[in-house]
């Protein structure tokens, strides 16, 4: 991995965008990286746009903000509209195709699409959508190795019930599976 990577997570408020970013941040810290997570909110508590930027680096992080992230994980169409052009040239775009009904326009991007909501339904884990996507994303991009992320599951979900941790782990593993098969 290069010295520093910045990953944007974007969707609408209530979709779990911010916690997805936090999961990645915890996992990367556990893997010994320098990390920073910065949220940005719309005014409404529900339904407004929400996004967060995760910075992962081998060195001390200077700016935790950027105009152009290397990667973006997009959970709704307005976010794709807003951020597609901002991704660095030849960057990676991860899209939940269940929620985004158009394809990216740029031709240089490495696009990874997944109908996350459908897969979550199939797995009888409708709330596991975000973890499925995270599993697939990490398996494919190795921003943090999935082994490292799994090692830190208990730490990341500290305080939550056993059953919740188990369900999230299942979803994460299912995502890894999907990436191996499809991407």
């Amino acid at each position, binding site marked *: 991995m290069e010295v520093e990577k910045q990953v944007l997570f974007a969707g609408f408020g209530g979709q779990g965008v911010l916690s997805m970013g936090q999961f990645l941040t915890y996992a990367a810290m556990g893997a010994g990286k320098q990390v920073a997570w910065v949220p940005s909110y719309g*005014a*409404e*508590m*529900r339904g407004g746009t929400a996004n967060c930027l995760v910075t992962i680096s081998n060195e001390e992080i200077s700016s935790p903000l950027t105009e152009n992230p290397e990667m973006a994980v997009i959970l709704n169409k307005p976010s794709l509209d807003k951020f597609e052009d901002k991704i660095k040239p030849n960057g990676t775009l991860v899209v939940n195709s269940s929620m985004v009904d158009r394809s990216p326009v740029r031709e240089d991007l490495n696009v990874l699409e997944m109908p996350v909501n459908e897969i979550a339904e199939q797995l009888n884990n409708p709330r596991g959508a975000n973890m499925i996507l995270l599993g697939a994303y990490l398996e494919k991009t190795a921003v943090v190795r999935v082994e490292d992320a799994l090692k830190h599951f208990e730490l990341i979900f500290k305080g939550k019930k056993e059953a919740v941790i188990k369900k999230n782990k299942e979803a994460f593993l299912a995502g890894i599976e999907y990436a191996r098969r499809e991407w």
Partner: protein
Amino acid sequence: MKVVFKKPESLTDAQFHYCPGCTHGIIHRIVAECLDELDIREKAIGICPVGCSVLAYDYFNCDMLEAAHGRAPAIATAIKRLLPDSCLFTYQGDGDLASIGMGEIVHASARGEKITVIFINNAIYGMTGGQMAPTTLLGQVTTTSPYGRKKENEGYPVKMAELLSNNQGSAYIYRAAVNNPANVIKCKKAVKKALQIQARGLGFTMVEVLSTCPTNWGMSPIDALKWVEDEMIPYYPLGEFKNAEA
């Protein structure tokens, strides 16, 4: 074709931003219907608070002014005294009116300012993410009463309708709720009466409305309405507390 139901003139076409299940929507409509039915939209001046209804100036179709947190009664005082023919209403939440604005509201009522205060009491701070309000109930868990409100520590919830009805300057004080259709109808009657008493120049008027906050109470909208019935109304009884016409 006969129109049997439409948006009141006194509401704009802007879409409300409130959370699903929030009763601000109902109460905005009640106020607007009263302004329409009394034909005072063009005389009305509304002062909005800092709280979830901070953007109320986008929703009411009359002259509107933003107020600093809690200061609406002071602002309304000046405007009504300078423009006595106007119809002044403030729209305030429990932090705005009963916490930071406690000084302003008590004095506006004591001075008998000829304004109508719509006081939205949902026992919590909505906009800032669920902190305790002066009207938070004993035992209620909020982000700044994480162990439940205790009388030894956080004291008792304040009852504004009762408090302000003690002032001789108060001409009409009513506590309403909008958790069921019957209460909605009574609330509208009270708001109309308050505006009429303001027009007669009898003094300070207020309708306190028990409202919901499903998001920060952590409940579904339907459970929130039930919580008003089961928990709020027993502590905050509904009805008329002062009526200068009676």
